Structure formats: C-alpha cells, structure tokens
C-alpha cells in the first residue's frame, strides 16, 4: 500500500516534470541565424505582408507615417481578458531596440520573449511559425530603421489562470504546428500564396473559426469567423460561400474596392492598406491560393 502511494507520487512527479518539459518555451538554437544578412528593403515588404503595424501602431493612427511608429497601445478584447499590443519600436528601453534578429525570430515564430517566457497567442505566432529565417532577418533590418518611441507598454488585464504565462505551453502543444493547411500539388504561385495567406498574412486568425480555447479550427480553414466581442463577422473565403474571381480578389487587395463597388471595411481596411504595398504577382498569388482552399465541412 505504502509502496503504491510512493510510486503514484513518483509517477505524478514524473508526469508533472514531463508536462513542464513538454510545455517549456522552445527558442531556436543560438546559432540558428548565423550567416544571415538582413536587407531592409526586402524587409519592408515582409513588414507589410505580415501586418505588424495593424496591431502595433498607436490607437487613432490615421496615416502611413504615423503607422511606422510602433509604440503599441491598441486593445484586443478576448474571452480571457484584454490584451494591449506592446511597444516594438527600436527604443532600447521601452521597445525592442536591444533585441537581436534571433530574439525577434524567437518571439515571432516560437512565441518566446527575451526573458525566455511564453508570449500570448494574441500575437499571431501560431501563424508566423513557418516564416523563413531570412524573412525575419530582412524584417529585423527594416524595423530597426523605424522611429524609436519611448511610450511604455500597457500591461494586459487578464484573469486567473490566463495571467500565468507558463500555462501557454500546453496551448502551443495543442494548437501550434509546422504543417501546412492546404497541401498537395501546388504550383509556384499557389505556394507563394500559401506562404502569404497561411503564414505572413495570418489571414486564418480572423477568417477561420476558433474553438473554446481560442485555437484556430484548421479543419474549417477560412470558413468564416466571429470576433470575441460577437459583433464583427469575418466572412468565409471558402468556395462554397465566396465566389469572387482571381482578378477581383487581387484587385480588392490593391484598391480596396469589391466587385460590387463597395469599399472594404472594418479591420480588413488595414490588411488592404498593407497588401496594396506588395507586388501584383504577390496579390495574384494570394488569389491563386484562395482558389485551392477546400469548401467548408
């Protein structure tokens, strides 16, 4: 009897240790980005394609110059509490001016900050996971050319237990994967489109429905979502509901006008602002990829 209790306790200890081991923050090896040289000009395109400014610009930002000041402060409501986007300007104290490109890669792809702690998935690293490290090097080079700002970041307002960062490891284990959603025989443009939609553009973060724990239901990819306030619906981009032509999609991403001459609205305004900076061939790649997305279940 005594023995069973002891071995159960031992098992529990091993289990807990195993849990902590499996859910520990997992940054890259320190030499992962050795030899990569960043190109700021290319990084500007990565910056637009991945929409960093849409979340990290100041509230009330009205123009493109202001959108380059990544002082944070925008508010994101969720079932778990309210998140505030932090300052990621190159200010060494309040922003990320003292970070290396590898630190940025750890945050963006692995959801781990410089203190080695898990970041919240309100920062869409579950999507950014497959960003190439060369793109991170370029992005980093570009971000360091942006204006520094000394506004301190606003702390999140989260309830217990969501305020405990170590719990996020389990979330990552369940919902973060290296696998593509749309797989199979894709041509070059469709593959580029997949990288833009599934990874950099993090389109699924809005357009895919979520489960109760806030993970994207990858089996219902781009089948339409709803924001946590329940007010804003994100339209489906699956072929059963969404029937725009490739030309119409690429045109919308360049100009903001829909096939029935309406203007883009809501948060999609920022996505179009960003994608209007990309090349025609990238916008066409997004459209080509969307044609390959399967119908919703």
């Amino acid at each position, binding site marked *: 009897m005594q023995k069973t209790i002891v071995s159960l306790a031992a098992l529990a200890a091993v289990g807990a240790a195993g849990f902590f081991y499996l859910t520990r923050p997992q940054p890259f090896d320190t030499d992962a980005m050795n030899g990569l040289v960043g190109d700021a000009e290319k990084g500007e395109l990565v910056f637009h394609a991945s929409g960093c400014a849409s979340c990290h610009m100041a509230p009330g930002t009205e123009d493109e110059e202001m959108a380059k000041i990544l002082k944070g402060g925008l508010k994101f409501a969720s079932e778990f509490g309210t998140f505030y986007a932090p300052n990621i300007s190159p200010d060494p104290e309040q922003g990320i001016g003292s970070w290396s490109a590898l630190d940025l890669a750890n945050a963006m792809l692995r959801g781990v900050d410089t203190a080695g702690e898990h970041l919240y998935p309100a920062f869409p690293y579950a999507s950014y996971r497959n960003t190439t490290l060369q793109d991170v090097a370029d992005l980093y080079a570009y971000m360091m050319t942006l204006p520094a700002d000394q506004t301190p970041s606003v702390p999140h307002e989260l309830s217990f237990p969501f305020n405990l960062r170590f719990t996020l490891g389990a979330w990552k284990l369940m919902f973060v994967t290296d696998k593509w959603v749309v797989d199979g025989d894709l041509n070059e443009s469709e593959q580029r489109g997949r990288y833009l939609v599934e990874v950099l553009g993090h389109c699924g973060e809005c357009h895919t429905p979520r489960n109760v724990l806030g993970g994207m239901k990858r089996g219902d990819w781009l089948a339409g979502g709803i924001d946590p306030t329940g007010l*804003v619906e*994100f339209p489906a981009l699956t072929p059963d509901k969404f029937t725009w032509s490739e*030309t119409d999609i690429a045109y919308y991403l360049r*100009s903001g*006008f829909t096939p029935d001459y309406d*203007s883009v*609205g809501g948060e999609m305004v920022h996505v179009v602002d960003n994608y209007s900076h990309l090349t025609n061939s990238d916008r066409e790649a997004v459209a080509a990829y969307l044609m390959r997305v399967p119908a919703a279940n």
Partner: protein
Amino acid sequence: MFTSRALALGALTLALGLSPVFAEQIDPRDTAITARQALMNLYSFNLAPLVEMDKGTIPYDGVVATAAAANIMALSMLDQTSIWIEGSDHGYLESSNTLPTIWAEDSYLSGKVKGMVNTSVQLHDTVGNGIDALQTAVVKLNKSCNACHVYTIENTN
C-alpha cells in the same frame, strides 16, 4: 442628363434634410440610416465605370470617367450634418453597417467627411488625364472611404 442629375440630387437633399421635419413620428435615426445608404449606393453606382477601367475590364474613356467623377464630387459636397446622428448605428438598427465607434472623439468624423471632398475633387481633376492618373486617384479615393469604413462591419442583414 443634367435634369435627371438635378432631380436625383434634389430627391437626395430631401431625404437628407427635410424628411424628419414633416414625418415627426419617425425616429430621425431611421431616416438618417436610409439617407446614408442612399448616398453610399449613389457613390457605388458612379464608381462602377471607374473601377472597371482601373481593373482593365472596360477600356479607358476619359470623358466617361470625368462625368462619373463629377457625380462623386457632387455627392461628397452634400451637407451631411443631419445624416450622421449619433446612435444611428448597427446596435440601433441591424441593417445599418455603422459601428458606434465612428462617433468616438478620436475618430474625427467631420474631418473625414472633408477628406472625402478633397480626394473627390482630385479625382475629378485628374481622371481625364489617362489610365495611370485614374488608377492613382481611385486608390486615393478608397483611402478616404476607408477613413470611415474602418468603423463598419460586413453585414448580411
């Protein structure tokens, strides 16, 4: 052409300004929403040839483009004071796409209405100068639409 435009504008002015006066039993928010939707539909109707030329689905025609832009300019210059009544939003009437945040202090609604006038005038002045000028002006105009459209939702009601 001129008479029908004058008529349409006259009807719109009526919808925008006068109806709440002689239909007092109707909540002014309802008429404001109807008038706003009418205004947006007229924008959209006149945008059609510009968008199709920009997209390349119809050939560029400077005269047609300038005429459409003249209408958009005229629409942008209507006095909109009485159609942006605070509270006439999606929460009040489901068929409205407008979110209440459009009236928040930092949204500067009146500044946005002026911005639309400026880009519409630019549109009218430049769309006759060739397809490149049209493409630039149409995208610029969209930015003015979006200054307000960030406060709207996709609405299936």
